[in-house]
């Protein structure tokens, strides 16, 4: 729209209502958080490299695992998907911007506020001025109520602010998708990334308020004498776990559904075939979302639920792997007999399919109640969720970044370096997480700073893999920097005949696009 000049300088970023600028801020923010959370992971791995206590005290170690988890989940993975949604959804559905642009700006700027509060607590802890949250990213009561350090209260309010950000972001996404599609873009013509985000946004609006409820009850138990999670007053600490996981399980799908959308977008491009089973992908996503509300207690098989309860949640959890399997099948069928080439986004996507499936399979093992009673709270669980989150969610974000970077910046990235980033990450990530399965099956507990001697060799290699993976991510910074600075000019199509409206506009995408909606046939 011609009526606003495009201001420059820092105000442009502080006050912007443009979906592309806000999308970029989200992405950069999540990248920064990825490195902050990664730093904590390095502390953890340094401590665990050898048995015995070498670097940090147990309480500080707990603070590292806690803040690593919180920052990665809420600060790195979630905002990166919101950033992609901001950038791509309007381009994919032919809309001029997000439906509620000011709200969009607010959703973003709440994040630095929330994480500022959290990171301040961590810095204080580094300086020896009081403990940061130390009760695990799942903040179970009573660890977080009776025994939480004073910083817990700041953590609670920070979670509230993250929650407002997520809910407002999700409202914006839903309204944009339902109300802003270009003429002819019917629901069943929407790109899968848009579909998966629509369902993710629904999950966010449904469960983030439940998380807000949980931390609110925590705050009351801590300060106002209530007994929600205190059996002496007729409450129940197990109830905390129910409420948390009612949020928590849908939350893990919030972190993977957009990834499914990304992979479903990229594989057809480089297999040069349309996606196999579009409709079944949509239905599978919807069923996963529905089922994700009734599997939460698979995180609680050892708390002493009634037998019928354990059985119900075991069967439901196994059921959820059916639609997940449908998806994996469709991706493979899309590649089957395709004219495949292996550009960097495709490499990350194929790695995703293989490694995410490994995570799904270990999930299935964990879903079997009697087996989980052995595996629970061991490194096997850590291996499971890092396969689905790092080689799943994070790899998909890398795939997306490489796929759309030329569209965003107008320049091709340095392919050699990007491939180096891929291979270095791929190898190190498996050295890092694969042995965790074995130490886990050997029953090394998670969240401990020291361990019995028999786990020493494996942990040494895990740490080596960890440092290597951490270093490999610096390559991405170099690729990104070079790509923003210059490089071979990208065409508007970038790749060979990719599907989607985003490829009909020039590269780099101009600040305002689709001011007149395109017609979709």
């Amino acid at each position: 729209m011609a009526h606003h000049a495009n201001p420059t300088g820092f105000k442009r970023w502080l006050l912007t209502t443009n979906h592309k600028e806000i999308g970029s801020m989200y992405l950069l923010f999540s990248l920064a958080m990825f490195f902050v959370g990664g730093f904590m992971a390095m502390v953890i791995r340094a401590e665990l490299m050898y048995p015995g206590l070498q670097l940090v005290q147990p309480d500080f170690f707990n603070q590292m695992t806690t803040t690593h988890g919180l920052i990665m989940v809420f600060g790195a993975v979630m905002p990166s998907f919101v950033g992609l949604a901001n950038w791509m959804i309007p381009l994919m559905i032919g809309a001029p911007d997000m439906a509620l642009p000011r709200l969009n700006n607010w959703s973003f700027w709440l994040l630095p506020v929330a994480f500022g509060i959290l990171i301040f607590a961590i810095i204080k802890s580094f300086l020896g001025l009081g403990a940061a949250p130390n009760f695990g990213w799942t903040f179970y009561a009573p660890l977080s109520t009776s025994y939480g350090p004073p910083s817990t209260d700041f953590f609670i309010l920070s979670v509230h602010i993250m929650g407002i950000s997520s809910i407002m972001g999700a409202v914006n996404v839903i309204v944009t998708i339902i109300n802003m599609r270009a003429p002819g873009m019917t629901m069943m013509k929407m790109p899968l990334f848009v579909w998966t985000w629509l369902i993710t946004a629904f999950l966010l609006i449904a469960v983030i308020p439940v998380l807000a409820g949980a931390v609110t009850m925590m705050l009351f138990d801590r300060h106002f004498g209530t007994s929600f999670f205190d059996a002496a007053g007729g409450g129940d600490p197990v109830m905390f776990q129910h409420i948390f996981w009612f949020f928590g399980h849908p939350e893990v799908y919030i972190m993977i559904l957009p990834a499914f959308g990304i992979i479903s977008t990229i594989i057809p491009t480089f297999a040069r075939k349309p996606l196999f089973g579009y409709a079944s992908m949509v239905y599978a996503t919807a069923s996963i979302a529905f089922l994700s509300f009734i599997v939460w207690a698979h995180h609680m098989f050892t708390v002493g639920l009634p037998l019928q309860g354990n059985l119900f949640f075991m069967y439901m959890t196994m059921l959820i792997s059916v639609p997940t399997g449908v998806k994996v099948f469709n991706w493979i069928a899309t590649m089957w007999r395709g004219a495949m080439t292996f550009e960097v986004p495709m490499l990350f996507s194929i790695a995703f399919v293989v490694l995410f499936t490994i995570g799904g399979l270990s999930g299935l093992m964990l879903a079997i109640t009697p087996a989980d009673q052995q595996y629970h709270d061991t490194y096997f669980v850590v291996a499971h969720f890092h396969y689905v989150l790092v080689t799943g969610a994070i790899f998909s974000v890398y795939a997306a970044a490489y796929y759309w970077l030329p569209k965003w910046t107008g320049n091709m990235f340095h392919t050699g370096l990007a491939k180096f980033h891929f291979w270095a990450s791929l190898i190190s990530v498996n050295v890092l997480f694969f042995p965790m399965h074995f130490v886990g099956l050997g029953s090394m507990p998670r969240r401990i700073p020291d361990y019995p001697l028999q786990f020493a060799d494996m942990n040494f290699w895990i740490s080596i893999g960890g440092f290597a993976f951490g270093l490999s991510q610096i390559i991405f910074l170099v690729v990104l920097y070079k790509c923003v600075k210059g490089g071979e000019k990208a065409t508007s199509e970038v790749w060979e005949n990719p599907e989607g409206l985003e490829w009909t506009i020039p590269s780099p995408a101009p600040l305002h696009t689709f001011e007149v909606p395109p017609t979709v046939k």
Partner: protein
Amino acid sequence: MAAQTEPGKTPLYYVPAQSVWPIYTAIALLIIAIGGANFIQQSTDKVANEGTLGGATFAVGLFALLVCMWGWFRETVVESLGGKNSTQLSISYRMGMGWFIFSEVMFFAAFFGALFYTRLLTIPWLGGAGNNAMTHELLWPQFQAFWPLTLTPDGRTFEVMSPWGLPAINTLLLVTSGVFLTIAHHAIKVGDNAKVLKNLAIAIILGFIFMGVQAYEYHHAYVEMGLTLNSGIYGSLFFLLTGFHGLHVTIGAIMLTVMWVRTAKGHFTPENHFAFEAAAWYWHFVDVVWIFLFFVVYWL
């Protein structure tokens, strides 16, 4: 696009100019969070936090938030009066409000879920039901499972709130308020502003009376019945549910009051009155929560 910005025409899609309010609002929340956490810690003696001025910071934050809301809403009102709101945008606003209310429903769902969980599982289990006979025996063998729980496992006792009396009156107040609001809503659709003002005023006054009664009920609970936040799980759930509901009534009543002023200023037309509608939906939501609450918290 030239075609869309011809003077006097509503643009097809209006990208608002840059705005200072979102980031100011984010900063206001930062001040509230820092002040609030310090304030709570100081006033409940958990942590001394000397010299952090929690209460004052918290107050400043709240004030800043109010200013921001005023500024932000003012911006949207000016746009709306300036004819910038296309049909598409007003649909976006309506959907946005609808989904926001859904998120509020889920917020209350967490608390209602806690209530059901406590009544159906925790209390019977503490009393030894299921396979919990040993737990019961070892922890609090004298504990009796019943609801409302007027005697906690560790021996605190108090009275419970009867539904007949103030809560029943309150139910009537809110429902009647909802009816008057609906009459006002129908009036706005036909442009009868005088009728809107009259009925909306009644709806608002009933809302404020509700809040007064609720405050009196709390006072009564604390002073005469020994029913406090400290009264085990019954008191916890009672005050959490009614308290958050009361907070929402307060917000809703403020929203309706603003709508009254805006109606008086002639802001709304039969076609363009999104804000009124949003406030009305919010009020009905608060109404429904109360009815639910009356049944499961007070009555059953």
